[in-house]
């Protein structure tokens, strides 16, 4: 969890933990199972209210700030894409890289 890796590799463990946490939240909140590559907002999917809940949840749980262009829907479409977003923002925060 306290990985200091700044590259894209070597973070598999962190990725898995992140993915697991996002799945846990989704399943607790929607009372149904999700796959990591399911499009959450495709037809019959979740509301824009829920999209905002996801943003707030990721920020709170992972201590990140999601701003500007990072809020684009593609980043929230699947568990996989959210995991990638979280890891990228954590890495940027740890490495001191300014956000967008």
């Amino acid at each position, binding site marked *: 969890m306290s990985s200091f890796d700044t590259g894209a590799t070597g973070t598999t463990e962190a990725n898995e933990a992140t993915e697991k946490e996002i799945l846990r*939240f989704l399943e607790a*909140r*929607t*009372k*149904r199972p999700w796959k990591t590559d399911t499009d959450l*907002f495709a037809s019959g999917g*979740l*509301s*824009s*209210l*829920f*999209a*905002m*809940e*996801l*943003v*707030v*949840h990721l*920020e*709170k749980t992972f201590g990140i700030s999601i*701003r*500007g*262009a990072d*809020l*684009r*829907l593609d980043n929230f479409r699947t568990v996989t894409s959210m995991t990638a977003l979280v890891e990228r923002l954590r890495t940027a925060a740890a490495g001191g890289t*300014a*956000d*967008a």
Partner: protein
Amino acid sequence: MRDLPLSDSPAPDRELSPDTQLSSGGENSPGEPAAMVTALVAGEADGWDRAGLLPVALLRKLGAAGWLCAQVPDAYGGRGLSSAAGGAFTAHVGSLCSSLRSVMTSQGMAAWTVERFGTDEQRTAFLPRLTGGDLAAAGFSERGAGSDLSAMTTRVRREGDTVVLDGHKVWVTAAHYADLLVLFGRYSEAGEDDGDAGADDAGEAVAVVVPADTPGVRVTRVADPLGCRAAGHADITLDAVRVPAAHVLGGSPLPLPLLVTTALAYGRMSVAWGCVGILRGCLTAAARHAVTREQFGVPLGEHQLVARHLAELLVAEQTATRACEHASRCWDEGSPEQVVAAVLAKHISAGNAARGAATAVQVLASAGARDGHVVARAHRDAKLMEIIEGSNEMCQLMLARHVLDRTV
């Protein structure tokens, strides 16, 4: 601007209004800022309502001291209040003057949109203006896009280092006073076909900061609004309005629903707390009248049918307060529950305020039945609160959707 009794110096008039004494019950006491606002507003709101205008100098003074958007962080010249503290302050202002409170809602929503979607540079550029005396409004609704904001047709077209806005907005609260307009519209790159984008309801949209004096912006007041008559509601037309591309918050388009849901979340919290204020103003006025006015040889409050009105007003005020406190707690804790809690608080508070204000008018009867009187204003203002920032029906749909989303 800082020489006025609006900054950190104690207000000259420290006397709390009876409103505050009766309604706060201690736990929500907003303290010195509230006393400062009371000194400035009490006794004036009646005249502002009848004139349909707030003194611009007063708005700029409050704005320059950070009080129109008090939740903006200190780093940007704001007061850095939590949602709970900001809410208590909002309720206090709402108990005195819903028009002024509406201007705060607009300024706060504009600031929140900049804070939430803007880049570091944009936050640094715009937020100090919103805490420095400039006034702002946020424009969502259009003639064909009220509850259904996905029908929005205002276009924002990228052209080199600029963007060009075409379209219109209606009923933009505080736009009459605003120096800066935060406007939402559909986005297209230069040369992109922007013909049928309206069909794409998850489409890409942007929020743009537009100075109100930009050529092509025309702001026309809504004549004789039902409520919040001095809040400066206005329609806006945008005819080839060109601003730097750096005014597009966040620099790139986002899904329209996420954009407006996020921006409105602040507005809903502010309206909800404002409605708590309306209820407090009504409760105070009704209680005072029931104690002092005698009919059939006893004070009105000794008549059981009148006493019940007072009980109902208290229940309405307390219930709305608890819903707002919960939503603010979620907001301050960063809980994802804040999104639904804000809708719930808005819905409860607006409905309670509309019913409570009608009740208060009933208790005061002829004593409150003239324009400008606190309960007459409350009656008109609260009705508008059932319409803006998500009508009763839209709130119910969102709450129902929330239930359905979490049911197998």
